[in-house]
């Protein structure tokens, strides 16, 4: 377990809780969860790759 894993679990738990409180029904929950959890992760992965490729130049 690295620090990154703890951060990931924290993000997962907090986005789950916030989406649960925010949503009225199941489909809304899914969309809120995706917005709160997968968007930062996607940004992380995307920007990481961009920076990595820039570093390779």
């Amino acid at each position: 377990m690295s620090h990154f894993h703890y951060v990931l679990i924290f993000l997962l738990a907090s986005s789950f809780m916030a989406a649960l409180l925010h949503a009225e029904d199941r489909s809304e929950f899914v969309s809120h969860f995706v917005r709160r959890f997968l968007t930062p992760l996607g940004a992380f992965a995307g920007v990481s790759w961009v920076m990595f490729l820039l570093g390779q130049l």
Partner: protein
Amino acid sequence: MSQQLVQEPNPWLALVGIAVPGAGHWLSGEKQKAIGIFLLIHLVVLVAILGGAAVAPPIPPEPAYAASLSQSDPIGSTMRTMERVAQSSSGISVWATKFMGYYRPFDGTFTNTFYTNLLSLAGLLNLLSAFYLFDKQRLIAKHMAAVVANARKEKKG
């Protein structure tokens, strides 16, 4: 009315409201109070900074005191040492630089501090919104209780 109460605020506006002294009062229309708070906070900060410089002793302390080696005051000595260590990090910019991971080159792995810290900030934002949404549930419950109480009153009267 409750719809207006539970509407989520613009987070950037909320950040400004927290960060700028008096901004909350300005946004809620109390302009005079806002200007007063803004000026007062700036005055206090300026007095703290300039006043501290003005009353700093021009005479250096004795060497044992300066080196935190004073045997007669071990607790004060330890506190001064800790204070010096804290001050040697010279402010928030060093903290920010370390936090954002500028001291380490990007290596394309999960050990990179910059993005990990951004992810943890996203988690903190989620946590804050969870607290806000708890409050939203509380406001909805309060509104429903008021509606029920009104209905009962109308039924009786």
